[in-house]
């Protein structure tokens, strides 16, 4: 197999499909034509892509939680509670970690233990084990549009089952569900497997079924500079579009400095439009998703509400199409449904209070947009070049060379050479730009920013600064200053 960013033929796809559907017993339940007919019966208000498109036009920011439990009825109750009490606009089904690792036996075990224990022992909804019929019970009983959210390097069977089950949106990607989630799965393999998922969405599209696709924007969630996550997001958008995906949501995880966060969403939108058009994908509808702070949270719930609110504010001011919501239990564990609803309500209140006041595109925002764009272009163009004009092949080589490099990734396919830290205003910069293909001007920019902070703090930029920044928000600050 030679990895190329090229639309799979139906033959290629169906050949692989035979095998995929045997990975677990429930694969046999998938009947594509019947599934297409089933999708035709889903009402518009439960349709994810349609709801997003409407929100984009109206300038709304929609709220979406993370949530998933082991058993179907509990899962339905949970989602409906979040829709009603939490006023969530969009719903998720967060998949458990065994399923994410294709450990369906362990997932089955988790279902059974949960039945016995009377509480969920899984950290998510094991959709593959529940099968098409189980998934449909959820889709039918739940009051809003639902998306699959996971973190699965090889998600082929999960995609088959959940889409046949009637989900209208699907998170993930060959890079974004590998680099933060896996240790020793090659990018060649995950990009290839995700071409399968994207192709399946594309084939649904060919049959008139619109499914929203969303690369996982925040990656490791820990001090990821916008240009790094934007590069990954845009590459995944291109890979998806090539396979026929038409409705794409690109994501970004809050860094915490308002100017940088607003600029990041604007830059992401503009760059994605530009690159998709430039590479010949002109019929995708793009929306954006802003993730509330994805790193370590404060344990105190009142303090967690502050972090949640600041994320809500930034999402609203940046006019992201949707916001993924954290909860006051974040530092401890999977939230109760009540805690989850609280995070949603806090977010909803802030978003609706701010919807009438867009953040002005000030000089500072403009400057930040420009730097993010310049950095991202350096990376993307180099990836394309390394791939000899192919983003799929280029991505694999770029990670090898550290041209793409995600901080704190557990993957051995990631070089782990760059080191991010906050500048004196809390924006995420690089105190080591590693092998990122930046111009000297950009490298100097980062160096100056770090020097400014180092001088202010009376210490030199070092790994201790990075550690301080990692703990900062959970300890009540944005910038990890020395004591």
């Amino acid at each position, binding site marked *: 197999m030679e990895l190329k960013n090229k639309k799979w033929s139906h033959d290629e796809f169906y050949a692989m499909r035979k095998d995929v559907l045997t990975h677990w017993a429930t694969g046999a339940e998938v009947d594509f034509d019947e599934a297409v007919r089933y999708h035709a019966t889903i009402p518009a208000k439960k349709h994810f892509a349609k709801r997003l498109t409407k929100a984009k036009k109206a300038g709304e920011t929609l709220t979406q939680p993370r949530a998933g439990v082991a058993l179907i009825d509990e899962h339905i109750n949970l989602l409906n509670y979040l829709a009603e009490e939490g006023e969530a606009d969009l719903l998720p089904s967060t998949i458990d*970690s065994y399923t994410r690792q294709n450990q369906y036996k362990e997932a089955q075990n988790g279902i059974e233990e949960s039945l016995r224990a009377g509480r969920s022992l899984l950290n998510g909804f094991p959709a593959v084990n529940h099968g098409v019929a189980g998934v449909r019970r959820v889709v039918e009983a739940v009051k809003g549009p639902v998306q699959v959210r996971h973190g699965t390097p090889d998600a082929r069977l999960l995609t088959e089952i959940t889409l046949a089950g009637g989900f209208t949106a699907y998170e993930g990607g060959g890079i974004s569900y590998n680099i933060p989630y896996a240790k020793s799965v090659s990018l060649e393999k995950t990009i290839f497997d995700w071409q399968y998922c994207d192709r399946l969405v594309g084939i649904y599209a060919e049959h008139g079924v619109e499914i929203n696709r969303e690369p996982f924007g925040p990656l490791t969630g820990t001090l990821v500079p916008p240009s790094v996550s934007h590069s990954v997001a845009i590459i995944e958008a291109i890979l998806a579009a090539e396979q026929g995906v038409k409705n794409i949501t690109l994501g970004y995880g809050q860094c915490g400095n308002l100017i940088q966060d607003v600029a990041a969403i604007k830059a992401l939108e503009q760059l994605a439009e530009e690159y998709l058009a430039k590479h010949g994908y002109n019929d995708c509808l793009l929306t954006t998703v802003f993730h509330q702070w994805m790193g370590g949270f404060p344990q105190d719930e009142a303090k967690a509400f502050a972090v949640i609110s600041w994320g809500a504010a930034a999402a609203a001011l940046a006019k992201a199409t949707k916001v993924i919501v954290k909860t006051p239990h974040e530092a401890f564990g999977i939230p109760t449904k009540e805690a989850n609803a609280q995070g949603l309500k806090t977010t909803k209140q802030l978003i609706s209070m701010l919807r009438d006041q867009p953040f002005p595109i000030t000089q500072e925002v403009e400057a930040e947009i420009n730097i993010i764009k310049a950095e991202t272009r350096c990376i993307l163009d180099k990836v394309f070049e390394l791939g000899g004009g192919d983003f799929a092949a280029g991505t694999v080589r770029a990670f090898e060379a550290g041209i793409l490099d995600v901080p704190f990734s557990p993957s051995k396919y990631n070089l782990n050479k760059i080191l991010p830290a906050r500048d004196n205003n809390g924006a995420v910069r690089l105190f080591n730009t590693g092998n990122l293909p930046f111009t000297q001007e950009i490298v100097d920019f980062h160096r100056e920013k770090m020097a400014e902070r180092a001088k202010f703090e009376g210490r030199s930029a070092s790994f201790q600064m990075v550690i301080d920044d990692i703990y900062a928000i959970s300890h009540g600050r944005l910038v990890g200053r020395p004591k």
Partner: protein
Amino acid sequence: MGLEKAKIILGVIGADCHAVGNKILDHALSAAGFEVINLGVLVPQEEFISAAIETDAKAILVGSLYGHGEIDCRGLRDRCLESGLNDILLYVGGNLVVGKTDFDAVKEKFSAMGYDRIYAPGTLPDEVIADLKADLAKKGVRHG
């Protein structure tokens, strides 16, 4: 110097990919003078055992953040004993169970599973290092 460094196995168990705490612990434990054998994330029980045997480690530090700790951590003590690791320290830390839970109950549960020390969410490395030094000293292990 002079003294040999005590070897410590570090890893995040099961299907868990949370890498940040693991990297920071590695850094802090190494800086504190331990020889850290870091298995990284997504580590099966067997790998902890074989690494401990291979390196003659004094302690295994198991991390579990993602909520499946209860399922994943069970039986590790037995495996240690089965493999002749009779005297090894077993620490476990992270977000050990699903959901925000009373920590005393968690502690009891993991203590019953045979872990010597159980750490609450958000524990800072300094606490772990101090405990490790104390526990190793009790066992007569010194380190440089």
